[in-house]
C-alpha cells in the first residue's frame, strides 16, 4: 500500500506512546493507520459501529492498564458528546485523531455543519484540541497530544485538517 511518510510517522508516534488498542469508524484519511494497525500484531484494531463506542472502549482499556486511541472523522464528533463525560468524570486519558471534513475544498455540503462545529463542541465537552495542517508536524503533534493525554490524564483531540489529508474528489 502506498503510505505517505507523515502517516507512517503518525503510526510510529502511536506505537511510541504505547497505544495498543486502535478503534475506528473508518475514514479515507485514516485508511493507512487502520491498515497499519491490522498489520501490527502488537496492536488490536477494533472496528466500531458509532464513534462514542470508542470512548467507552478507551475507558475500559485504561481500567485494564492499556492505552487506546480513537480514529474518526469530524462528522462523528457529534456522536461523542455525552460519552466524553466518562473520561472527564473519571480523570482518564483519552486520545482521538480526527480527520476534518467540511473545511478545505469540501464538495459535500452535508459535511460542513459538523466540520465547522467540531473544535467548539470538543472544547465545550472538556477536550483539549490540537490541530495540524502540515505533513511535517503531524507526527510530533500526535506525540505531544499523547503525552498530554496519558501523562496528565485528560481528553485530547488532534484535528488533521482537510488540507493535510486532501479533499475528497467526487467524479461523475
Amino acid at each position: 500500500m502506498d503510505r505517505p511518510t507523515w502517516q507512517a510517522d503518525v503510526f510510529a508516534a502511536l506505537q511510541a506512546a504505547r497505544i495498543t488498542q486502535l478503534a475506528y469508524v473508518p475514514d479515507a484519511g485514516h485508511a493507512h493507520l487502520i491498515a497499519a494497525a491490522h498489520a501490527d500484531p502488537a496492536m488490536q484494531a477494533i472496528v466500531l459501529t458509532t464513534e462514542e463506542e470508542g470512548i467507552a472502549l478507551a475507558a475500559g482499556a485504561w481500567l485494564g492498564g492499556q492505552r487506546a486511541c480513537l480514529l474518526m472523522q469530524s462528522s462523528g464528533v457529534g456522536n461523542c458528546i455525552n460519552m466524553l463525560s466518562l473520561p472527564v468524570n473519571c480523570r482518564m486519558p483519552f486520545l482521538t485523531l480526527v480527520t476534518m471534513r467540511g473545511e478545505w475544498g469540501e464538495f459535500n455540503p452535508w459535511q460542513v455543519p459538523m466540520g465547522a462545529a467540531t473544535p467548539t463542541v470538543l472544547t465545550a465537552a472538556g477536550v483539549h484540541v490540537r490541530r495540524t495542517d502540515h505533513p511535517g508536524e503531524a507526527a510530533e503533534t500526535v506525540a505531544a497530544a499523547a503525552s498530554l493525554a496519558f501523562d496528565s490524564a485528560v481528553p485530547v483531540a488532534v484535528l488533521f485538517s482537510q488540507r493535510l489529508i486532501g479533499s475528497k474528489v467526487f467524479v461523475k
Partner: protein
Amino acid sequence: MTPDRMHNEGTLDRRAVVAELVRDPGELLVVSGLGSATYDVGAAGDRPLNFYLWGAMGGAAMIGLGLALAQPRRHVLVLTGDGEMLMGMGALASIAAAKPPNLAIAVLDNARFGETGAQRSHTGHATDLAAVAAACGWAAVATARDRDEVAALKPRLRSEALFAVLKIAPAEVPRHLPPRDGAYLTDRFRRALGVAEG
C-alpha cells in the same frame, strides 16, 4: 406490580439475581450500567474491582470490551439494564467482531426504563436482545426466566463469551448508592489490578 406477559415481563427478583451472580467474585472484573444495575451490584457488596457507571449511558458493554482486551487472563462481566443495552446496541456488533473470549454480558431486562418512571422499553414492545446478540454474531446467547436458569448461567458468565438476558420483575426496589466519584472508582480499580502508574 403483576408481570405482564403480553409485554414480555419477567418475575425474577433483581437483587437476588445479581447477588447470586456476583457472590464469591474472586478475580472477576465487574462493570455495571447506570441506574438500577449499578445499585444492584453495589448492594451485593462494594469492592475495588467493581466499576459502577452513573452516566455514559450506552457505554457499559464497550467498557467491558476495552477491559477484556487489556486483561486477557481475567474474565469481565458487564451487568446492565435493557435501556442501557438498547442505547448501545451497536456494541453487540463491535464485540462480536472483536471476539474477546473473556467478556460476558448479562442484561437485567425488566422491559422498562426504571429510573425515569417505568416507561415501557423496546424489549417490552418488540425487541429480543438475546436474538439481537445472536444476529450480531455472538455464538452463545441465553435467556433466564427462573432461579434455576440463573444458577445454570452463573458459571458460564464467568468463563464464556456469553450474552444473557435475565427476565426480572418490573417491581421497584430500594436504591442502594455505591461510590459515584469516577476518579476514585478508576484509581482504586487500577490499583487493585496492579496497573496504576505511579
